[in-house]
């Protein structure tokens, strides 16, 4: 303070001060210039569509009379009408329930398998021998697009063209119809588990590889078995990765679309509103009702947001503060 007051005269010399302020102002703008490309892309391709979807969800088309002549359709404000319609749609809650059941099957199975595979691959003996081959073959299904995977599994599920059924029948066992009412959910879940396990396994495995081996050595000196090391040391250390893969799986579950959509033409048991996202698709493209589709999308986005951030908040301290 004192330094400044002594250096600066009581009355600022106007030209000099201005000259000094201009570069300062330019400097203040620099971060924005650097940020601009990202901000513009963010605004044009993420923020604007979201705002537009929000806007559409509050609008609807009003038809007058027979709706056949020109200009018989007008877009009007609908308030929260689309939201009430979406939430009270008799197909909506069952689709949410279905996705809930699907998540209860997929997430624990997929993450359980991923963790098991990661631990097995990380074990001393496999690391040096078949590790690389096994890692790649477990990861490979993740590289198959969901639509292709569903077509592939669809063929295996259809009794008449399935080699699995042929084999079972040759052995004298009557094969169950996997696309019947009771089993469709499992059939769809199976595709997701098959496709997703590899990715989650790699994430957990990478976290395991980052653990200093000295930890294991000291545990071994203390007389811990491999199972005890896995259970007491490895799993707690990779907990943050498990939390992350859980959040990813949760989001993927809420957005399940490609698998049931691809299987739908093959079976009577998958309806056009089998999952909430399929309902969005039906409203937008089969019914040409973008407004209802936008409202349901907003609801799904909010639910995803609340569930994933709620979960992170719940486990945050436990997962990220290992030292405590």
């Amino acid at each position: 303070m004192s330094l400044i007051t002594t250096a600066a005269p009581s009355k600022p010399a106007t030209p000099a001060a201005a000259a000094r302020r201009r570069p300062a102002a330019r400097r203040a703008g620099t971060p924005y210039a650097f940020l601009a490309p990202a901000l513009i892309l963010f605004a044009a391709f993420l923020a604007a569509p979201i705002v537009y979807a929000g806007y559409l969800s509050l609008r609807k088309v009003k038809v007058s009379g027979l709706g056949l002549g020109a200009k018989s359709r007008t877009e009007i404000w609908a308030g929260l009408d689309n939201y009430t319609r979406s939430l009270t749609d008799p197909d909506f809650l069952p689709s949410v329930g279905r996705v809930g059941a699907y998540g209860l099957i997929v997430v624990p199975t997929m993450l359980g398998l991923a963790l098991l595979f990661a631990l097995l691959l990380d074990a001393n003996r496999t690391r040096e021998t078949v590790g690389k081959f096994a890692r790649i073959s477990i990861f490979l299904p993740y590289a198959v697009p969901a639509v292709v995977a569903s077509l592939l599994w669809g063929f295996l599920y259809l009794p008449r063209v399935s080699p699995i059924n042929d084999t079972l029948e040759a052995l004298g066992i009557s094969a169950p119809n996997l696309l019947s009412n009771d089993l469709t959910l499992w059939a769809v879940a199976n595709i997701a588990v098959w496709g997703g396990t590899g990715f989650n396994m790699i994430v957990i495995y990478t976290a395991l590889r980052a653990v200093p081996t000295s930890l294991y050595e000291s545990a071994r000196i203390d007389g811990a078995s491999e199972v005890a090391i896995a259970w007491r040391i490895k799993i707690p250390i990779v907990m943050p990765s498990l939390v992350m893969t859980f959040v990813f799986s949760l989001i993927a579950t809420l957005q399940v679309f490609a698998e049931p959509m691809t299987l739908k033409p093959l079976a009577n048991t998958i309806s056009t509103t089998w999952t909430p996202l399929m309902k969005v698709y039906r409203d937008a493209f089969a019914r040409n009702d973008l407004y209802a589709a936008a409202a349901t999308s907003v609801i799904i986005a909010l639910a995803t947001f609340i569930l994933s951030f709620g979960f992170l908040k719940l486990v945050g301290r436990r997962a990220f503060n290992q030292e405590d």
Partner: protein
Amino acid sequence: MKTKFAPLMAALTAAALFTGTACSSTDSPEETTDPNQKVELTYWTWAPNMDKVAAAWNAKNPNIQVTVNKQDGGDPAVTKLLTAIKAGSGAPDVMQAEYQKIPTLVSSDALADIAGEVGSIKDKFPAGTWNGVTLGSEAVYGVPQDSGPLMFFYRSDVFESNGLQAPKTWDDYAAAAEKIHKADPKQYLGTFSANDAGLFTGLAQQAGASWWGVNGESWTVNINDAATQKVAAYWGGLVEKGVIDNKPMYTPEWNAALNDGTQVGWVSAVWAPGVLDGSAKDTKGKWKAAPMPQWDAAAPATGAWGGSATSVTTQSKHKKQAAQFVAWLNSDPEALKLLATEAFVYPAANESTSILTSPPAFFADQADFYTIAGEASKQLKPFTYGPNVNVAYSAFNDTFGKAAESKKAAAFTESLATMQKTTVDDLKNSGFNVAG
């Protein structure tokens, strides 16, 4: 804080403005009057080889040049067209439009009324088909291109070994289905497909239903009427008895069943040979075509599955020339011949019977194939489509899917009430006047 975020907000607003204005340009179509002016028309269609048909027109009309733009199919083309109409530009001049989509397109102000230009060729088409492009009004929203009268296709060898004739009535069909399935439990005469609302609509049409209608200034919806109830109860009964299958059509499984001789019949339309050629090629030569089984053999009737018209869009700047091309394409003998031989469609025009003389390749031994088809297209019952056919069709997929899976005849007839309610609710919700 305020000043810190100002540039960010400016960027966001600019982007929002940019995306907002990009789709608000509108151009109003203007008629060109100069007859010698050279115009270029674009034509969206998904029929194969349509560029070859257009080439024949282009050679004769140097001033009206048509460019064919191949589309993926009926549904995606409609979605694209409606998007272009909403955006105010980007629509073609001429567009292939399935009959059941026409009311939806008209209600979105996508199709131009060309009554003045093509009204005079009305008599060249069966009345039932022409009704599909007028929606029962004075306006004309296109010219019929092809039609899909229902026909029955069956494995003559299987019928022969079971001592059966082609079914004349639906009672005959049910008896044949039972006999065939009893003789070989793996064989079915048909399947009830909850994926193909179009076929079920055709069957209801044959029984005398017309699901939509216009009554003064209001729409009527009659999906749950006596005729449709009769059809649903009939097929539900066959499924419940287990004498026909309940699996959807157009699956790898269904293709395999046609080819390995476990599906030995198909209620389909005049275009079936093309499908059978691909799905059942190992059984070529064993199939025969027959007229549809009837409810009343004394008053033969049929329905339609598929078929489309050619329309001029409201965004076309050369409505007159576009209408000229559309009229030529669907009624000129030269064009009809090209449509049948190059684009493999069954032209809707009356004259097609004199053009189609040799049977399709899959039915090479059946000389009377097109005679049967021609008879069938004259027996088409009138049927009006409404502005929300897709809503009714997706309701069909869902409710009849459940019914087919349950194998209960009662579930089939109950499904119609659900379809009716879903369709009416949707119309009312959009603000259409609905009677009843």
